[in-house]
Structures are given as C-alpha cells and as structure tokens.
C-alpha cells in the first residue's frame, strides 16, 4: 500500500527518530512510504492558543500538500486529532493504520526492555485509540509491559499551557513522573512527541526514572537494529 507520511513539524525539527521509526516499520511490512516535502505544520498550536487565522492557513496548506493521497499516517495523536477535526483528509495515527487498515498487530519487532505506556489525551479522548497501541506493544518480542498508575490523567503539557500556567503544569508533571518512576520501567512510551518532550524533560531530572520513547521506535526495533538512543 502507498502511504503518505505527515511527520509533523515537532518531529521534523526535534524528534526525527519518531518519523524514521514510522518509515522503518511500514517499509519492513512491505509498504511504500511517500514524504511530500512541501509539508510543514498542521496549525494545532496556533489554533489551540487562539490564533484561528494563521491556523486555518496552515490547515489549508496541509490539505493542498496531501490532496489525492488515500492514506496519510502520522506518529502524533494530537496532530491527527487536529487534522481530523479541521480538514477532510484521510489521516491515521500510526496504530489506527496498523491495526484497522493494515491488520498488522505483530510488526516483527523485538525490544528486550520493561516498558510502560502513557495514553495521551488526544489519542485517548479525541481519536479513541483505546488499546490499539497496547496491542501492538504486547506483540513485541521480549518486551515486558507494565501498567502506568493513573495513566489516563493528563500529563500537564497542553501546548502553550505549559508556559502560560507553568506552575500548574509543573504540578501535573510531577505526579505523572512519580507514577512513571513507580513502575520501575526502563522506558515510558507514548504516541505523541509533544507530550513526551514535556514528560521526558521532567523524567530527565529524576534519577532512575524511565526514559521517554515514541512507541513507533519500539515497533521499529529488531534484534539487529542496535541500541535505542
């Protein structure tokens, strides 16, 4: 199947490994991935902060770039949620594409680590991803999945909320980090690099805490693929 990738601006600039992992998994399953190079940003941050006009221009830009593609994949729950609400594009979060469209639960990955999973708010409540990411992770060889206590509590990121209400955001982050540390996991996985940037920034200050990782990177890992950064 031919699949167009919307990598998202954040992954492009700061977390390319999430995009690379998405490409790796899909190509390993025999699909063709295309990357329309004119893509930039979906406009989510502008829209959520109240900048409707620039957000609309960015949304129209994504629509123009991806016009004519039958399946678009993106490794970001919140950007997919935004595009689904504001455009008519056939865009899937990676786990929706793998589970619902491609029917691939076992993607041939191996990851010999203890992993806990944080379901991010847009994936949970807008996209209703439910257990799709967990089913994919459960099928990974040698991976030990542990429950994250109070997993459905928001991590406190909220885009510009993290700056405008920094103290409240920090308090929510502290609780999320404490729950993550309590799992004793090596990695905390999620379907959104923006939440991971925030949670990971907090975990980095807590000795012995799990490391943040996009779950696509776990799905991309194979015995021969070397150490995860």
């Amino acid at each position, binding site marked *: 199947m031919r699949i167009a990738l919307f*990598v998202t*601006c954040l*992954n*492009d*600039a*700061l*977390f*390319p*490994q999430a*995009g*690379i992992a998405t*490409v790796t998994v899909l190509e390993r399953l025999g699909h063709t991935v295309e*990357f329309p*190079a*004119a893509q*930039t*940003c979906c406009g989510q941050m*502008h*829209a*959520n*902060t*109240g*900048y*409707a006009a*620039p*957000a609309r*221009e*960015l949304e129209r*830009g994504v629509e123009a770039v991806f016009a004519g593609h039958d399946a678009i994949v993106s490794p970001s729950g919140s950007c997919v949620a935004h595009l689904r609400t504001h455009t008519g594009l056939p865009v899937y979060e990676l786990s929706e594409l793998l589970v619902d469209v491609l029917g691939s639960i076992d993607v041939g990955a191996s990851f010999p680590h203890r992993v806990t999973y944080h379901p991010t*708010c847009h994936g*949970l*409540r807008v996209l209703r991803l439910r257990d799709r990411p967990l089913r994919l992770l459960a099928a990974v060889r040698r991976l030990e999945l542990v429950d994250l206590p109070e997993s*459905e*509590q*928001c991590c*406190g*990121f*909220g*885009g510009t*909320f*993290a*700056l*405008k*209400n*920094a*103290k*409240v*955001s*920090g*308090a*929510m*982050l*502290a609780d999320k980090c404490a729950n993550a540390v309590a799992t004793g996991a090596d990695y905390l996985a999620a379907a959104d690099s923006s939440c991971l*940037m*925030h949670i*990971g*920034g*907090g975990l*980095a*200050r807590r000795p012995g805490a799990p490391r943040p990782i996009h779950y696509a990177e776990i799905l991309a890992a194979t015995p021969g693929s070397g150490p995860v950064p």
Partner: protein
Amino acid sequence: MSRQLPIVARTPFPRAAGPQLADAQLRGNLRRATRTIRDKRAAVVAEVPDWELLRDRAAAVKDDVLDRLPQLLAQFEAAATAAGAVVHHAADAARANAVVADLVRAQGVDQVVKVKSMATQEIGLNEALAAVGVTAIETDLAELIVQLAEDTPSHILVPAIHYNRSQIREIFARRMPGFAADSDEPAVLAAAARVYLRRTFLAARVAVCGANFAVAETGSLVIVESEGNGRMCLTLPDTLIAVVGVEKLLPRFADLGDFLRLLPRSSTGERMNPYTSIFTGVTPGDGPQRLHIVLLDNGRTTVAADPVGRAALRCIRCSACLNVCPVYERVGGHAYGSVYPGPIGAILSPQLTGQDAGANRTLPYASTLCGACYDVCPVKINIPEILVHLRQAGKPPAAERAAMGLLAWTMRDRRRWRAALRAARAGGRPLRALTRRGGGRLRRAPWPLSAWTAHRDAPLPAAESFRDWWSRTHGR
C-alpha cells in the same frame, strides 16, 4: 451597584493558582474528595446502557430551549401566574437583588433561610441582603460550613470540598451557636448542624431558593437535593422567593425524566437523589402562600446569541467536570475567582461578564484541553471547543503575538521552514556539545523559556532533521 459580582476573578488565574498549589493540605483534601466522587460517578454511569442516548437527548432539549427562549419564558410566566405565583424579570444582578430585598422587607423580617442555589451565589444575594439589614442563613450543610467560616465556596456541589472534617469541627466550635462536640465524626457534626438548623427552620417566615429546572408547560419549579433542608425551606415558611436563571427552562414536563436520571448520577454519583421537590404556584392552606419567581438574565441572552459559546448554557450544574479536571484537582475552586469554578467556570464566568471583567480573560487558558470534562458532561458541552473559541477573542501580549506570527509565516512555506530547521540545527550545535553529558538537553534557559526549564529540561534541535534524513536515505 459598584460591588463586583462573585463571578469576576480579581487575580489572573496563573497567579491565583500559586498559593493554592503550595497548600499541601488543600491538595490532599481535593485529591481525596474528587477521586471519591469521580469513581462513584463512573460506577453508576456504567450501569446505564443508554447513557449516550440520554446525553444526546438532553443536549437537544437544552438547545431547543435556547432557540426559543423568549417564547418559552412567556409560556412559563403564563402558567406560573395562572397557578398563583408572581413572576418578576431581572436583567442583571443588581435588579434581581433589589427585587428580592424589597420582597423580603415587605414581609417585615430580618432573617431568611436559603436553599443552596448557584443563581443567588452568582448575584451575591446574601451580601446584598446584609446591606439592607437582612441575614440570609444557608441551610445546606456544606454551604453552611462555608458561611460560618466567612469563606467562599470552592465547588458547585460540595462548596466546602477544600476542608476536611477536623477543619470543619474547628469552624463549628468557633462559629456555631451552642456547638459543644469534641468529635469530628461526620455523624456528630451533621447532628450538631441539624439541631442548629431545626431551630432556624421553625422560626423562618421567608425562604429563598433557586431551581434546577423550570417547566414552561406547567409553570413548575423543580429542586433536587440530598439533605432534606430544601424540603423544609420549601414547605415551612409562608413566603418563598425563587431566583431562577432563564436557561433553567425545560419545554415539557415529560422532559424532566431524562434530566432526573442524568443529574444525580453525574453529580453525587447516586442512582437517584434523596429529595426531589416539584411545586407549581400556590396551594391554599398548604405550604407557602406567596410564591415569587425572579427570572434572572444577567448576561445569558448575550451568551445565547454566540453560536459556539451558547452551549455553556446547557449546563445543569452537576459539577462532574470539576471532579475530573486535572487542573481543578490541583488548584481548587478559589483560584478561578468565581462561584463557578473548574471547566464550566472557565467558559461560563467570562461569557456572563464579558471577557474584559477583572481577570476573567485568563480563565479560558486554565486548561490543557485534555477533554476529560467533555467526556463526563451529561449535556455534552464541548468545553475544550468553547475554551479555544474564547481564546480566539483573547488579547495576548504583543511579544506572544509576534512570535506566533513569525512561526506561522515560517511554516507557511517549505523553503523558509527548511532554512529555519538548518539555522536551529546550527545554533544547537555548540549547545549539544556543552550538554553532551546531560543527554543533549537544556537544564536552564533564559526568559521566556525559563517558564519551561523551571520544571523540565528542554530538548535541542536534532543533529539531522527528519527531512534531511529523508533526502539522504530516500532522496532523488
């Protein structure tokens, strides 16, 4: 009237949240209480197979009310008047307070008993009555605690949620006439309040209440409560004054059924609430012989004219959205500076007052847009959507506007975006070298990013952007 309404925040939300966050006792009290109600609600909602259908129907009924507000108000007034009630209209808080004060004074009393009511909180009725020498006594237990403590409510349903029981015993010991118990057992505290209130009920000649619902078809008012104090106020005094927000209307009596199923499960986590009072006009020789109904607008007609924001008027004040809100759970109700706290407060207060009132403009930003409120709302108010809608009318600082504008300009064009990525990567190179031991993350950054690094490390631009990786590996 120059007094500020209790729905106008005096302090910007981020600043008001600070001391609340630092109060470990408060956070403990809130965490325990919200979780208990949250779990109870989830359990009883899961029992109802047609819950989603109920929500859809209730939302549709409320939207219909908003579409036909003037017509239904006229119908309600005609029916209530025919049944013996006197209907008054109040365009704003000052007018409503004046009407109630005149009615109370006409009875020659200096004390009234009150059923818990958000509408009277919203207009600051107790303070307005005090100004003309009338004492209003709250008879709902939690509301009474707050009143005795000379505090303000911090939750719609559980106004004293920020106190634990030993704090409540202290308040009673200090302020309740005749209180002598030295135990903080809930049963002991409730018994003390009951003795105190019983005396008050028996002496009361005028009661003030709100209404959960007002039925246009029959002119009936409906009050839902748990303690029986409301039933006392609605039956013992001979004058009853109800202050009712115009959005409380339901078209038909038959519409009540769905709402009486939705409300208790959403608010207290009960299958049905203990006391439901439905009363229509005056019945000679039985109950109050004078019923006055003050229909309160106070900004509601303006809100109803906003195609997106109007959904906030569907609210039935169940407070489920407060109990699941991660922001409310950490800061409590007082940080919102309004008798309407939490997610509903963040969309209702600024709409009722206009965003320029006090610091109300900061309220729509007091959310991560996590959506937990929308999931539980029994009348399906898309709170995140309204928060974003209100942010669009915001007046952000010039520096923020400039930064967002520059970012959007850069991102509108692939060449500018690619150039920006390369510049960021080049700028990040020395930082990456410096922070290698810290895993390539930034621990401290200058303002405005210091708001970020106060709580978490910041990432650095990747050594190779995704698009450069793509050109290198898949390029033409």
